[in-house]
């Protein structure tokens, strides 16, 4: 699904954000990406979501080498990635339904199909009945769910989440992670960037740990009880 081969990212001023990072996330695999602030988590996610390009190395996404992808191809490649952000990135002047249906609108689905699938996605994240609300009138947790519904509506093979529980209380955080687990059970690859080690410890998933741009650990952080 995602293959990183000796990927480095160096910003202007010789700031090394990632240094020769290697890892492989298989199809249907769920993993955490952790590390302190500035460790390179966000840079790694930005490289996968094509917001940045690697300085050196090779990134393969879904069988396509995206290291030197043409600018015109980026939108089409992004449609294969569901992205979830800590700040939700919702359109506040549009309804929940319009937010969720955005990827389908872009792909050219008709309004009936967009509405039908959006309602299904909202049902999946437990927000059915709030489709006509504007996101501003929803709680932080609900907004995050809207973001998740938008990310999964076109059934992307890969889901990227950048600090998805950053602004949520522990209970809501666990609910969101359970949602990711259920999506992963359908075969979606899931990569979650978080610095919440407590949360990671409660789950039994592969954890990639970054420190100052280096991948210092790749494995289970701790086995979950039971």
């Amino acid at each position: 699904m995602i293959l990183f081969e000796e990927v480095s990212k160096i910003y202007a001023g010789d700031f090394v954000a990632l240094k020769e990072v290697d890892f492989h996330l298989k199809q249907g695999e769920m993993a955490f990406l952790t590390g302190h602030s500035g460790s390179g988590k966000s840079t790694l996610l930005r490289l996968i979501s094509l917001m940045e390009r690697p300085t050196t190395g090779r990134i393969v996404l879904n069988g396509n080498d995206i290291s030197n992808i043409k600018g015109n191809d980026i939108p089409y490649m992004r449609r294969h990635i569901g992205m979830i952000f800590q700040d939700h990135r919702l359109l506040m002047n549009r309804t929940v339904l319009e937010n969720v249906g955005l990827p389908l609108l872009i792909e050219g689905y008709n309004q009936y199909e967009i509405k039908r699938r959006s309602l299904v996605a909202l049902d999946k994240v437990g927000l059915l009945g709030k489709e006509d609300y504007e996101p501003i009138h929803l709680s932080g947790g609900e907004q995050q769910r809207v973001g998740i519904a938008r990310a999964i509506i076109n059934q992307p093979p890969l889901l990227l989440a950048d600090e998805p529980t950053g602004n949520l209380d522990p209970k809501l955080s666990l609910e969101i992670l359970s949602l990711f687990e259920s999506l992963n059970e359908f075969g979606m690859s899931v990569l979650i960037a978080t610095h919440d080690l407590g949360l990671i410890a409660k789950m039994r998933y592969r954890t990639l740990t970054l420190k100052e741009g280096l991948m210092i650990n790749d494995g289970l952080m701790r086995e979950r009880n039971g």
Partner: protein
Amino acid sequence: MAKQNINKNVLSGSPRITKVSFFGRVASVFQQHFQQVFSSFTELWKTPFATVMTILVLGVALSLPSVFQVLYKNTERVSSQWDKASEISLFLNKNISEQRIQVLINKLGLYSDIETVTHISSHQALEEFKEMSGFSKALNYLDENPLPDVLIVVPVEQAMNTAGSKLLVAKLKREQGVDLVRVDIDWIEKLQAMVSVAVDIVIAIALLLLLSVLLIVSNTIRLNILNQRAEIEVFKLVGATNSFIQRPFLYAGAWYGLLGGVIAWLLTFVLVQWLQSGVVSLMGLYEVQFQISAMNLEEVFILITAATFLGFIASYISVKQYLVKIEPK
């Protein structure tokens, strides 16, 4: 709610890359264009004051060239009526004999570029002058008639233009017994020269105003793009192409142009109506019946189409300058 209609299998099963059939994609492109044309119009009215102000500014800027065009068209109409040497007056020598005058009339009658020749004798001329001037008693005290015999020459239609009449005047001046040839074409030439300079000035002003329209729309769209930066970033993050994102802005620019064009047409119409009474009074003084002809349908169509195109181009400039550079952070 339509909960019972929801097909939960949509999100079940293994992930896949969503595919839309070719025909479905083509149909949806048209559908999207159609939706975006109208949604961009609706979007304008979310900031009604700013939109109305922009459209009014565009309308005023576009109305000036269109008013100039109407005035130019009417000036052309008037001057084309006057641009004819309909009569040439030949003032004959004082001592020319009646016999010689008749020979001259016969000779002129043979000219291919002369339609008619009419003789006004000096006596006839004096009588007419007495009648018209109201100085008949005073004129009776004159020892002799100071007026010469005059031949009124009417050229054929083809020789009534400036070049033709000049040629004819040159020939008439060479005729024996002709003292003076008078044709009222000089002032028309001067008027045409002035109109020509005025047209050049108007074209320069019109170009500047059209440039200002371009800048106004371009700047308005630039502000719209910057205001919607966050939204544009989200669109790009979920896989929208630049063409998908830029379409509403292009349509918005076209809407600004179209509405500005309509306002310009209305302003031109009002201005022409306002000028109408003044022009009618002025022309009445010269015993000429003249109505300013307003913009015809073709001109209105050209004005509105050009304004729409201008708005679209202005928007395109902004979109290429700013929108494509916005990348999600």
